[in-house]
C-alpha cells in the first residue's frame, strides 16, 4: 500500500518526493496515550465512587476507562484519517469552510446556551456554556474544533501572504488575523469563559507568526497587545484574580483557603508521590480530594502514582515529541506545512507547559487539559487530528535545515545536505 501511494509532489520550492513519515511522532504519542489509559484505569473506581457517593449515580469502576478507551479509538481513527486519507492540500483548499464550521459551532452553542437556554443539548456551568450534549453519544466541545479550524486556516492564509511577501503588511495580514482571533476570543474566552483554551489558541497563532518570519517590532507589539488583553481578562473575572493571588502566595498558601484548595491539593498529590510514587491504584487524592483529578489535574495524580521518575518520563515523552515536531519545521519547504506544524507545536506545547506549570504551582491555575492523558474526548480527537496532519506532512521533509532560525533552533541537526527523497528502500 505504501508503494502504491508513493508519488511525487511539486512545491514552490521544487520537487520533494514523498517518503516515509516520522514514526517517532506516532510512538511517543502512543506511549502517552497508553499511560493515560493506565492512569484512568487506576483511578476510575475512585472517581466513579466519588461521583456515585455525591450524585447518587451508579457508575461502575470501569466506566471511565471504557469511555476513555472509546475516545482513544475515535482519536486513532481520526489520526489515521488525517495521516493517510485526507490530503493536507485538500484541507488547505477548504480552509475557509473548516474555520467557518468551527465559528458556526461556537456561535450556535452561544445562541442555544446563553440566549435561548436549550438545556437539552447544551451543558452550562455558572453561565459558561462550553459543551454540546449529543444524546447517546457524549459531549462535544466546539472550541476544540475552532482551534483546529484556526490552525488550518491561518496556515493557508499566512502562507499565501508569505508567498506574496505581505507577511508584515498590517492591512492585508495582521488586521485580518487579529479580527479572526478577536472573534475566536469573544466566543472562547468571553462567552465560554475558557481562558485555558483561549491561551492555547493564541499559542498556536503566535507559533505560526514566529515561523512566518514576521518583523520583530510587529511581533513585540502583538505580544504586548496580547499581554494587555490577558491582564484585562484576569482583572475582569474575580475567580481569575483569586487564582493569581493564590499563585503569588506560592507554597505558603493555606489548604483551607477555598481558592487555594485546588492547587494546594495538586501539590500535595505531586509531593506525596516522592521519587517512585505510591503505585498504581493507591492514589488517595483521586478519591475526591483533588478537584478535576481525572481531567485537568491528571498530572498531579500521575505524580502521586508514579512519582518523580514517572513524571520525568512523561515529560521526556512530551519533550521528545515536541522536539520531533520542531525538527520538522526546520525541514519543510512548503510554507503551509511549516506553519501548520509550527501551530501544532504551539498547540501541544502550550497545553503541556501551562497545565504542568499550573499543577506544580509555577503559574496561576487555568483549566486546560494535558494532551493524551486527561480524560476527555474532544480535546484528544482534535489533537490526534492535528498530529495526523503533522504525520502526513512529515513525509515531505528535506535533510537540510531550510532556514537558520535563531528563535526556534534545535540541536538535533544533521549535516547531511541532500534532500531526503534520495533515500530509497530496497525490500
Amino acid at each position: 500500500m505504501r508503494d502504491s501511494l508513493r508519488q511525487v509532489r511539486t512545491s514552490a520550492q521544487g520537487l520533494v518526493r514523498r517518503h516515509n513519515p516520522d514514526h517517532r511522532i506516532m510512538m511517543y504519542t502512543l506511549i502517552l496515550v497508553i499511560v493515560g489509559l493506565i492512569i484512568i484505569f487506576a483511578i476510575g473506581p475512585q472517581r466513579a465512587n466519588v461521583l456515585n457517593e455525591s450524585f447518587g449515580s451508579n457508575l461502575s469502576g470501569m466506566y471511565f476507562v471504557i469511555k476513555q478507551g472509546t475516545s482513544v479509538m475515535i482519536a486513532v481513527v481520526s489520526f489515521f484519517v488525517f495521516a493517510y486519507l485526507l490530503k493536507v492540500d485538500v484541507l488547505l483548499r477548504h480552509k475557509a469552510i473548516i474555520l467557518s464550521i468551527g465559528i458556526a459551532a461556537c456561535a450556535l452553542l452561544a445562541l442555544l446556551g446563553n440566549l435561548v437556554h436549550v438545556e437539552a443539548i447544551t451543558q452550562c456551568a455558572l453561565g459558561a456554556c462550553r459543551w454540546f450534549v449529543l444524546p447517546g453519544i457524549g459531549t462535544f466541545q466546539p472550541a476544540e474544533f475552532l482551534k483546529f479550524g484556526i490552525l488550518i486556516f491561518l496556515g493557508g492564509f499566512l502562507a499565501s501572504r508569505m508567498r506574496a511577501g505581505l507577511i508584515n503588511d498590517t492591512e492585508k495580514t495582521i488586521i485580518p488575523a487579529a479580527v479572526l482571533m478577536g472573534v475566536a476570543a469573544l466566543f472562547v474566552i468571553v462567552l465560554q469563559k475558557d481562558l485555558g483554551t483561549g491561551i492555547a489558541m493564541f499559542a498556536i497563532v503566535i507559533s505560526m507568526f514566529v515561523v512566518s518570519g514576521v518583523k520583530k517590532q510587529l511581533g513585540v507589539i502583538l505580544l504586548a497587545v496580547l499581554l494587555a488583553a490577558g491582564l484585562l481578562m484576569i482583572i475582569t473575572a474575580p475567580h481569575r484574580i483569586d487564582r493569581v493571588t493564590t499563585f503569588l502566595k506560592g507554597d505558603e498558601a493555606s489548604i483551607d483557603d477555598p481558592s487555594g484548595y485546588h492547587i494546594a491539593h495538586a501539590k500535595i498529590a505531586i509531593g506525596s508521590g516522592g521519587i517512585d510514587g505510591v503505585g498504581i491504584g493507591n492514589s488517595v487524592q483521586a478519591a475526591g480530594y483533588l478537584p478535576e483529578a481525572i481531567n485537568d489535574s491528571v498530572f498531579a495524580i500521575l505524580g502521586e502514582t508514579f512519582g518523580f521518575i514517572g513524571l520525568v518520563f512523561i515529560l521526556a515523552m512530551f519533550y521528545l515529541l515536541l522536539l520531533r515536531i520542531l525538527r520538522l519545521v526546520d525541514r519543510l519547504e512548503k510554507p503551509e506545512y511549516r506553519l501548520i506544524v509550527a501551530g501544532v507545536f504551539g498547540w501541544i506545547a502550550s497545553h503541556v507547559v501551562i497545565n504542568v506549570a499550573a499543577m506544580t504551582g509555577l503559574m496561576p491555575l487555568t483549566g486546560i487539559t494535558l494532551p493524551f492523558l486527561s480524560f476527555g474526548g474532544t480535546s484528544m480527537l482534535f489533537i490526534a487530528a492535528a498530529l495526523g496532519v503533522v504525520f502526513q506532512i512529515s513525509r515531505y521533509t528535506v535533510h537540510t535545515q531550510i532556514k537558520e532560525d535563531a528563535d526556534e533552533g534545535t540541536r538535533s541537526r544533521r549535516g547531511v545536505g541532500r534532500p531526503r527523497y534520495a533515500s530509497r528502500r530496497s525490500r
Partner: protein
Amino acid sequence: MSYTRTATYAARRQQSWGRNQNTARFVSPVKLGPVMHTILVALMILVLGLIYLTQASGSASYDYQASDLDRKINELATKKADLEVENARLSSLESVKNSDVAKAMTQPSTEYVR
C-alpha cells in the same frame, strides 16, 4: 518469526531506524514496517501495564463495596433492632393485657388445687 542470515550488505540509509550502521544485516522474511514496530511496542507496554493493573488496582473498588456492605449491614441491623423493639412492645405485659384475646379470658381461680 525466524530470522535468516543473508549475504546482502545494504546501504546504511535503507533502514530508517539505524543509519550509520553499515554492518551485517538480518532480513526477516516477515516484513515488519516501523508502523508495526511502533504498534507492537505500544501493545507490549499496554499488556504489561494491564497485567500490573489487574494485580494492583482491584482493591480500590473493593473498599467501596466493603463500605457499601457495611452500610447495608448497619441498615439491616437497625431494621432488625426495630423489629425486635416492635416485637417486645407487642409482647409487653401492657399490650398483652389489653389485647382482645386477654379481654375475652376469665379471671383464673387460685383455688384450682384444692
